[in-house]
């Protein structure tokens, strides 16, 4: 596998605050690499250093063998960036925005206009091409910002939280496009705080928290680490009494399982072997709960993430 991005001992501090703390990772040509972490983990700061928008405090970055610190312009020619916030010109139309972005890369008028039209079609914005960017909805703005990053047909794409804060239909559309672009050969570096997005889209994922990479692996390997975990969610009718002690009681009654209260109406049990759920249900019933549903949970990246970082999922989802 050819390494296309190599990051060595990368550090960034802002007046004493360490935003990125000596991270190492490699991205291979043709993969979708995910940077998964909660808000403030250092994802955007890392992208900014990779793309020339932030100075590196310590360490090195190579993109296709070129040192970002010394040869940023050669690097910028082959990369496309979708920033965390839309940064196109509000007063220009969608079409003009795309053409302007193409011109910044030295594209000729005919090429810019042709590709701009193709991209408007691809992103379902054909009819909005003549409208001003300021009149677009959030989802449309996100799509046009994405399209703008593709004008010069970059080899490597940096996507900073590409689906955060937009409608479900646009999210699906954008995710399909990411897969499509990757199939056509683009290497993609994406950050997200949605675990399920990383799991669905990425080939490899790095968990990042408070400026440090906790672990980096393929999604399969990360899932494998939890393959032997058997999980069942019990959903019960709302109760009026305090159930905060229940998980402990359950654990002392069935020592081989661990339990957590997922929300006020769901208890999750996890064990290393297949568990007979009938005694658990009757125990819960004897504690005054009316169990309405028991569901087997397939291990997801979520468990691997929680195990590796110790971060509560609720904090990630906000």
């Amino acid at each position, binding site marked *: 596998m050819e390494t296309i991005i190599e990051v060595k001992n990368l550090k960034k501090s*802002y007046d004493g605050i360490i935003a990125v703390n000596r991270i190492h990772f490699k991205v291979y040509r043709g993969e979708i690499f995910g940077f998964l972490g909660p808000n403030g983990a250092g994802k955007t700061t890392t992208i900014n250093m990779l*793309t*020339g*928008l*932030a*100075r590196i405090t310590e360490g090195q970055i190579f993109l296709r063998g070129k040192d970002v610190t010394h040869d*940023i*312009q*050669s690097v*910028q*020619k082959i990369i496309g*960036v979708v*920033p965390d*916030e839309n*940064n*196109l*010109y*509000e*007063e*220009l139309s969608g079409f003009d925005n795309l053409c*302007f*972005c193409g*011109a*910044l*890369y*030295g*594209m*000729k008028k005919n090429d810019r206009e042709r590709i701009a039209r193709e991209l408007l079609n691809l992103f379902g914005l054909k009819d909005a091409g003549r409208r001003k960017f300021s009149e677009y909805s959030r989802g449309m703005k996100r799509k046009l910002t994405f399209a*703008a990053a593709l004008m010069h047909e970059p080899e490597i794409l940096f996507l900073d939280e590409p689906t955060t804060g937009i409608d479900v239909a646009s999210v699906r559309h954008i995710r399909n496009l990411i897969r499509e672009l990757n199939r056509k050969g683009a290497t993609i570096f994406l950050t997200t705080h949605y675990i399920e997005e990383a799991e669905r889209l990425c080939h490899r994922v790095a968990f990042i928290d408070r400026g440090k990479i906790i672990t980096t692996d393929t999604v399969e390997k990360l899932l494998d680490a939890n393959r032997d975990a058997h999980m069942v969610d019990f959903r019960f009718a709302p109760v009026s009494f305090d159930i905060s002690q229940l998980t402990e009681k359950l654990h002392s009654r069935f020592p081989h399982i661990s339990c957590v209260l997922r929300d006020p109406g769901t208890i999750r049990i996890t064990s290393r072997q297949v568990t007979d759920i009938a005694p658990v249900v009757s125990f819960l019933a004897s504690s005054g709960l009316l169990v309405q549903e028991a569901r087997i949970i397939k291990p997801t990246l979520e468990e691997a993430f929680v195990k590796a970082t110790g971060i509560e999922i609720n904090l990630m989802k906000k």
Partner: protein
Amino acid sequence: MNSAIAFRNILFKDMKNYYLKPPNISWGLIFPFAWMGMLLIKSGSAFSISEVFPGIVALSILFGTTSMLSVTITFERKSRSFERLLLAPLKTELLILGKITGAILFGIFNSIIPVFLCACILKAPVNNWFLLAAGIMLLSITSTLLGLFISVAATEVFEAQTYSNFFRFPMIFLCGLFIPVTSLPLLLKPLSFILPVTYGVDILHYSISESNFLPPVIDLIILSVFSIVLFYFSIYNIRRKWIK
């Protein structure tokens, strides 16, 4: 990589989006009339057109460029569209040149009306048209570069405006427009000499009525040096401050 395409498009976009917008065009048209009206009221009916000619030209340029450039750049930085330019594979010098050229042209455009008004309508004699043009151009360049200097210091649009005024209003009195530099109080003279506009105004004085205090060649050299230093100093600051 064809940098000329990028340069041209940065320039055209700014012209279309900012400088050729009706409010800015009409500003360039009304401003000189307003100043002349003011002077007329101040001095009763009779004032020598040759005396105020340089002042009106210089002020039209100064007020057209400095705040325009600093406000537009600060606005683009605030709305983050400036990041687009920083992400593009362009030399900082080229990018900034693209941004300032629009403002320089706008400054020159702003001088057309007062020149036309004074020279053609009010028949003020012009001693040297070539130096008048050179003076206008260099004044546009230096006042635009002052705007660039301001936009590096400002982070909010209102700051850009405040700083522009902070520079401009004292300049009106210090650069020899209405009070000759030679008759300024001793304490204020050094201040006047560090202002590039002083030398631009001196060229205008020479080109219109030969009432200059320095030889025009010296003025031209000083202004060129000023421009180059200001440009590279701003580039240095931009690299240091905008790529954090």
